[in-house]
């Protein structure tokens, strides 16, 4: 596959494909069945939701830093129902909190990590012309879009959007305002989108991989997306069932989650009762625990690709990493009640879930350690993707290690539902996964556009984000260890024991606002580079994996000649080879 092939015009299609040349604007860019277009749709929509969800949090951080203070200028925008006189009401704070979590997880990170990167890169990396079910793929994007619109629209209904946490615990959520029903309907759309996508990813990976591409020759990114798809496929349906049941409790008067004799505002609730709020928790966390691995696995996949490429070395321990990934995926289904240690379970079941939770930390450590060891002896190139990938490693390390005390039911007693938990999971997702997503954007941008993003702006984006992420989240460990609960609308200000740590809320807030400022160079870079970025050839990173064999951007059908895999995915610095990499598809 010569370099010049990349710039040649796509070969004329066979007669029955000729209609592709005549696709109008709408079929080509809006209702497309091409995985690359769909991937970009997911990516851009997801990034917009990430920005929106981030903005919700920047607003919350004003209230946390300066409880009760009126927000200058912007405060009046939210009206008297939410911020009378510019001062945030608790209900609005709860709305922001619940929707920040929901949007970041379900409308931001997963759509970008799986819908965006998975869709765009996976078929290219396995040498396929598209996904196995292109029309289903398009349907999956539009269900996501519908879910997103529903979630956004819920802000406008009487009573506002959902405000019972992203976890929607019963009975509070059952009794909440209309926005909660919109949340449930939105979730049903989003779950449908994920299920359709998961089926597509698994079928495509198994069936459409190129000749010679055996499972143990898959790039680690492919394995990561493959396992993630199984998590989505098998863990989401119980939440869909639970969502329907909660909707029925809310509109059909059932009592799946309402216990007998519930008293609300001094009145006994007129419902049949006999339900169990813990049932909601079990069904919710049955999904939500595997969901956190859905959040991290694609990130590990992206980081692995970028580290191999920028150390000019094969990944250390590829086999162990793959086995760890599969084992992790399996274990993720039987740890969920570590989110429920405080619900009164007996010692036997607590022991069971503590054990499985400790066991599941092992594959995570294997993967992280392998990635770190992969750096040893490498010729490291410190380009922007690599900086974000390197930054991911210690951040995920902190996030993962701080999870361990939470996995023990006794240690969990003082820590549960405090800022310690918030710090733990944000470390994994924010300077963890989101850094990996940034890395992936800088890395695959040339494949999608034929141009590189600016390195200078990228480095500013990295440096600022890295520092600010730590400024935001490190103090939260201190605040949490002091005993400040999460979801308090004043950040603990009304509690005596919290007074010594309240100043950290201010620090976190300024960190968050500065973090917002440092996203500006990224947003500008993202759009500016489409027209003004440095033009590149089809393999600007001198990478080995098959996606770099396609032109940049790849045409419909992806490859000019059908690729075949002849070796493993990371043949860098092979002794005796002409260049310091031998591509996977090279004859």
């Amino acid at each position, binding site marked *: 596959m010569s370099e010049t092939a990349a710039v040649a015009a796509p070969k004329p299609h066979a007669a029955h494909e000729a209609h592709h040349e005549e696709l109008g604007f709408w079929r080509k860019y809006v209702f497309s069945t091409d995985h690359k277009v769909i991937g970009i749709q997911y990516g851009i929509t997801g990034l917009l939701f990430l920005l929106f969800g981030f903005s919700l949090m920047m607003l919350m951080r004003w209230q946390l830093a300066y409880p009760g203070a009126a927000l200058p200028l912007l405060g009046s925008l939210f009206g008297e129902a939410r911020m009378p006189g510019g001062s945030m009401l608790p209900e609005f704070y709860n709305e922001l909190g619940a929707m920040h979590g929901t949007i970041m997880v379900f409308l931001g990170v997963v759509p970008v990590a799986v819908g965006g990167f998975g869709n765009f890169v996976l078929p290219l990396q396995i040498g396929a012309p598209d996904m196995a079910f292109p029309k289903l793929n398009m349907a999956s994007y539009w269900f996501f879009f519908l879910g997103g619109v529903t979630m956004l629209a819920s802000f406008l209904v009487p009573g506002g959007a959902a405000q019972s946490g992203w976890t929607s615990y019963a009975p509070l959520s059952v009794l909440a305002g209309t926005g909660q029903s919109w949340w449930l309907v939105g979730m049903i759309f989003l779950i449908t989108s994920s299920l359709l996508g998961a089926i597509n990813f698994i079928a495509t990976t198994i069936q459409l991989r190129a000749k010679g591409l055996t499972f143990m020759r898959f790039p680690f990114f492919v394995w990561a997306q493959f396992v993630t798809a199984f998590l989505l496929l*098998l863990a989401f349906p119980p939440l869909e069932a639970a969502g329907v049941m909660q909707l029925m409790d809310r509109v059909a008067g059932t009592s799946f989650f309402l216990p007998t004799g519930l008293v609300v505002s001094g009145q006994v609730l007129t419902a049949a009762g006999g339900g*169990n709020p813990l049932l909601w928790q*079990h069904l919710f966390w*049955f999904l939500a625990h595997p969901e956190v691995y859905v959040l991290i696995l694609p990130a590990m996949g992206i980081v692995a690709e970028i580290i191999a490429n920028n150390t000019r070395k094969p990944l250390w321990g590829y086999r162990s990493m793959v086995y760890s990934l599969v084992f992790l995926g399996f274990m993720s289904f*039987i740890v969920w009640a570590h989110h429920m240690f405080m619900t009164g379970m*007996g010692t036997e*079941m607590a022991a069971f879930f503590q054990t499985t939770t400790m066991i599941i930390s092992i594959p995570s450590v294997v993967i992280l350690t392998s990635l770190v060891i992969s750096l040893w002896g490498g010729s490291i190139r410190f380009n922007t993707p690599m900086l974000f990938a390197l930054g991911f490693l210690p951040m995920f390390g902190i996030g993962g290690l701080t999870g361990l005390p939470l996995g023990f039911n006794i240690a969990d007693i003082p820590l549960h539902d405090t800022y310690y938990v918030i710090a733990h999971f944000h470390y994994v997702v924010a300077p963890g996964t989101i850094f990996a997503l940034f890395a992936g954007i800088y890395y695959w941008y040339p494949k999608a556009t034929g141009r590189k993003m600016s390195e200078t702006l990228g480095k500013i984006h990295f440096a600022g984000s890295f520092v600010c992420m730590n400024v935001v989240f490190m103090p939260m460990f201190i605040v949490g260890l002091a005993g400040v609960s999460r979801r308090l609308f004043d950040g603990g200000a009304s509690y005596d024991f919290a007074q010594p740590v309240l100043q950290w809320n201010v620090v976190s807030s300024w960190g968050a606002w500065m973090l917002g400022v440092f996203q500006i160079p990224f947003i500008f870079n993202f759009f500016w580079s489409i027209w003004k970025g440095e033009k590149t050839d089809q393999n600007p990173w001198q990478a080995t994996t098959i996606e770099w064999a396609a032109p940049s951007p790849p045409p419909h059908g992806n490859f000019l000649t059908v690729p075949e895999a002849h070796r493993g995915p990371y043949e860098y610095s092979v002794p005796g080879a002409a260049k310091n990499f031998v591509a996977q598809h090279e004859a």
Partner: protein
Amino acid sequence: MASMTSDHAADIDRHVRIYITVFVALMVLTVVTVAVSRLHLSVPVAVTVALLVATIKGSLVACYFMHLISEKKLIYAVLVVTVAFFVALMALPVLTTSNGYWIHEPPSDVQRAPATSPHQ
């Protein structure tokens, strides 16, 4: 599976005979399960028998109507994993909520509370 050469016709005939046999078996088992329910056995026994009969019926549908008995390894792999998680979903919530006292009696100094205990 999709090839339709003439020597498949004999194959299909054999399959059709199996479908009829399975149908008869399913009818018999349906009668059995309804009849047994009339005996008003104790709940644990009734549940066991009912689930056993249902599992046999379900297996017949899966193995012969859905051709699982001659399916490819990959499909089996997906289903084995699914069944494992299905069992976890059936067993773990009730075991967790009932404090494990569903499988053994509570210690004598613990008052047995209903399964939804934190809320009653």
